[in-house]
């Protein structure tokens, strides 16, 4: 009896699943057809996000989702949870769903050629957002919209140079990098080093990855503080690692922002709060609000217009005073 019943239930589930699948397939087909025919002009965009590893990323996701709605673009959103294989899977799904355009923020720089080739063969244009890929074939994607991380690193380095201009002795620095191999980690390190690397006054004592997270940032900073008695400056590749490091510095009985100067990149709300509180000294903005620009580009690309190869997001920098002024309107 029981067996029979479970068979019936299972059968029901199967039927339901098939129906659901049919429904999904149907709507997809009509969506693809409409886009191909350009009847109603409704563009379908597949967007693969890195994850939700920080407040910055969450704001980025929200900006993309909100501006897609405003622009009347149907968004298929997929969260890769920091894994490249998830992202490749998502892109393949977008290709099989025949979306009109694919946009994604690559988790790491390398290993994208095959799947981007598949997209190109399927005739689906690709826009990179926020992070670059190291593929030599530039035809694999239409454009890359995002911040220039090297410039961000340079801005941080220039501030440090000015801040310690009158300091006589060697300036001992430590660096918290992002995930090993990620574009922002490589470029922010490079930009920073391009300003200070040649100056013998500035000494980089240690540089290790804190994976862009608070927990890891704190842990690594604790080890830095043990191994190096005299640290003058911390350069963190994002606010969250800096916030973790602040906890470590305070636990070691030092004053963040005073005993150890801190410069970070991003300018998320929690970071700006710490900047306004005087625990961080300088933040280079890396704006996540690229949604409107992305939708604009997507429309142009789908319409067949030519777009520039590289589009920069508008960004600034914040001192402690500027942070106090900007904090009330900070959305993320």
């Amino acid at each position, binding site marked *: 009896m029981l067996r029979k019943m479970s068979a019936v239930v299972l059968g029901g589930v199967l039927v339901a699943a098939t129906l659901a699948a049919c429904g999904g397939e149907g709507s997809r087909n009509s969506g693809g057809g409409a886009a191909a025919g350009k009847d109603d002009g409704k563009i379908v965009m597949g967007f693969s996000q890195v*994850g*939700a*590893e*920080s*407040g910055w990323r*969450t704001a980025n996701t929200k900006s993309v989702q909100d501006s897609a709605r405003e622009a009347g673009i149907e968004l298929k959103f997929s969260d890769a*949870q*920091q894994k490249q294989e998830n992202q490749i899977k998502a892109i393949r799904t977008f290709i099989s769903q025949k979306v009109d355009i694919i946009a994604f923020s690559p988790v790491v720089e390398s290993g994208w050629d095959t799947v981007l080739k598949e997209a190109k063969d399927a005739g689906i244009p690709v826009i990179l957002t926020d992070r670059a890929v190291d593929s030599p074939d530039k035809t694999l994607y239409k454009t890359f919209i995002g911040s220039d991380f090297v410039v961000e690193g340079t801005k941080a380095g220039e501030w440090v140079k000015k801040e310690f201009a009158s300091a006589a002795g060697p300036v001992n620095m430590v660096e918290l*990098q992002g995930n*090993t191999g990620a574009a922002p980690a490589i470029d922010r390190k490079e930009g920073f080093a391009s300003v200070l690397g040649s100056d013998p006054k500035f000494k980089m004592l*240690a*540089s*290790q*990855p804190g*994976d862009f*997270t*608070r*927990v*890891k940032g*704190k*842990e*690594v900073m*604790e*080890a*830095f503080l*043990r*191994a190096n008695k005299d640290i003058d400056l911390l350069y963190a590749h994002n606010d*969250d690692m800096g*916030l*973790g490091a602040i*906890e470590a510095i305070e*636990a*070691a*009985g030092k004053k963040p922002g005073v005993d150890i100067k801190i410069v970070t990149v991003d300018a998320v709300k*929690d970071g700006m709060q710490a900047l306004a509180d005087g625990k961080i000294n300088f933040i280079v903005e890396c704006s996540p609000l690229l949604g409107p620009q992305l939708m604009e580009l997507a429309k142009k690309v789908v319409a067949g217009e030519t777009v520039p190869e590289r589009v920069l997001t508008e960004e600034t920098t914040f001192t402690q005073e500027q942070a106090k002024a900007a904090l009330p309107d900070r959305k993320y």
Partner: protein
Amino acid sequence: MNVVRHRLFWPVAMLVALLLSNLFFTPDFFSIEVRDGHLFGSLIDILRQGAPLMLVALGMTLVIATSGIDLSVGAVVAISGAMACQQIAGLDDQGAVGGVLVAVALALALSAGLGAWNGFLVSVVGIQPIIATLILMVAGRGVAQVITDGQIVNVNSPPYKTIAAGFLFGIPVPVIIAAGVVALVAVVIRRSAFGMLLESVGGNAGASRLAGIRSRRLIIIAYVVCAVCAGVAGLMVSSTVSSADGNNNGLLIELDAILAVVIGGTSLLGGRFSIAGTVIGALLIKTLDTTVYTIGIPPEVALLFKAVVVVILCLVQSPAFRAKFARRQPAEVTA
């Protein structure tokens, strides 16, 4: 010679070697100072940072002893922290000890429930442990995201912060918690029949059942204990930075925990297990991390360095490898 033959000789030797190599790069690595009545020093850091891993590995040891495995501990770490932080963030007074205790209790109860779910799938439904716990490993981060609404939840609660950053009698609270839980589990296991029954179920579940041991219940208990340990670890991880990050808290800690258990000499096939070995394994892994930071091994090479250390350790621990190596040496001398 007897010392060398001891099961834990090689892990301990490797741990000591790693610590000594740090001394070479940081001369005052072993110094422990008392500041404001609190103990400070690299060794204390290792103990404190290693506390969550130690707890997770402890629970993992029991599950592995039943010849199971729990891949979902990392997700439980994230869920527990998310639950506690979300609760505390909703309090009118985040500094209220009572409210924080309720949040902690809720998080641990939720963890226990997740453990019971794992145990149910393994022992009652009969799904293979690696598959049964894989479900929660994959889905669990989603659960954590749902709890926190996909955001990083910040709390500003001194009582909650105590869990990871507080001191009691000068000793960091997480170290005391970890030591307490390890001692409790060790006493219950070795002073009652529980440990023996666990080994028996892990060695041969069928024979144990025929001998009258209720293996189902034992297996569920093992998974519940494992999840609660992970839950406590989750509280520590989120408390250390006063925020819960559903995506990253406890990421890949399951693999570190399994490695700690294996380094400690517990067989993945179940049966024999060693709690002391697990504790040493966890400390070894944490020391490895700290060594990378203090010596300044470049991040590109760091993983390779860790792999080499673990491979060497596994090789010297393997009786077959040692026997081969010992036999070859005299031959080389005669040649």
